[in-house]
């Protein structure tokens, strides 16, 4: 152990400010980098997931519309009537 007590340790022989500034900035920068990297991974997964669900919804909607169209071909009169009743 190079220091006699905790105060001497924090003082760093008069260079305390510079030493702790260096170690502090280093720790902060690296912790921030790790957190942001993990966040980025999560966000990437989320974005891909969103794209998939959107794609799935669009496909389903297209399918429904097509089914509706086929049904409407036989009952197109009903649709026309409802359109007339709502000006």
């Amino acid at each position, binding site marked *: 152990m190079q220091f006699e007590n905790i105060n001497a340790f924090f003082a760093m*022989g008069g260079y305390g400010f510079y030493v702790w500034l260096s170690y502090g900035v280093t720790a902060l920068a690296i912790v921030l*980098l*790790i957190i942001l990297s993990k966040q980025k991974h999560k966000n990437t997964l989320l974005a891909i997931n969103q794209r998939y669900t959107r794609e799935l919804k669009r496909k389903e909607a297209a399918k429904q519309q097509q089914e509706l169209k086929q049904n409407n071909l036989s009952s197109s009169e009903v649709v026309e009537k409802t359109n007339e009743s709502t000006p």
Partner: protein
Amino acid sequence: MWKWLHPYANPETTYHLTGRIIPWFSALTIALLTIGITWALLFAPADYQQGDSFRIFYIHVPTATLSMGIYVGMAIAALCSLVWQLRLADASAAALAPIGAVFTFVSLVTGAAWGKPMWGTWWIWDARLTSQLILLFLFLGVIALHNAFEDKTSAGKAAGILTLVGVINIPIIKYSVEWWNTLHQGATVSKMGKPSMSIDMLWPFIFCYMGFVFLIVVITCIRFRSEIISRNSMRPWVRELVLNQGVK
């Protein structure tokens, strides 16, 4: 060798492999850095000229050397990506750039905080410091180019060319202390033959250095994985992966 290497060029295999090694390398990093930093701050002797300000050395030198190392690694990846169109190489170059920027930034800040009490100034426009600042700007430029294009392939190309042009800066940083008169001291650890450091100062340095090396490996793996899936988002295996993970 190619037969052995081939499965690792498969993004899916690499994604899962890096996922498996992250916990082990994280544990190794934490162990090495805890030992190294504790040793450096508490047990390593103070320098007879610089006193306790010398303890900045244990983070300044590893981050500065490794920032150049990261740049060289990124340049090799960029070359592989440009010449052989290896998409994983491009992903790794993109993953390395932010880590290099942070390491360069840390080396500059710790250098300034060491320079103030020793040289009497936070900053001086001398060769070593200026070329290291240029390295930071190169990293930032590469990051910006990677994000400037919607299409990852053209982004990788642009960033790769900048990376390769910027390699000229690496020998300038390395030899700046020999080519020009500068305030910055010469190499201490990597002198040919014996390092001019006493053993009780050298050991904590080795621990810190290796700790930072594995730290780079861990963060690279994390970022590399994001780059892989964002480049392969249309592949079935990514689809399966995302659906299995659910919305978290």
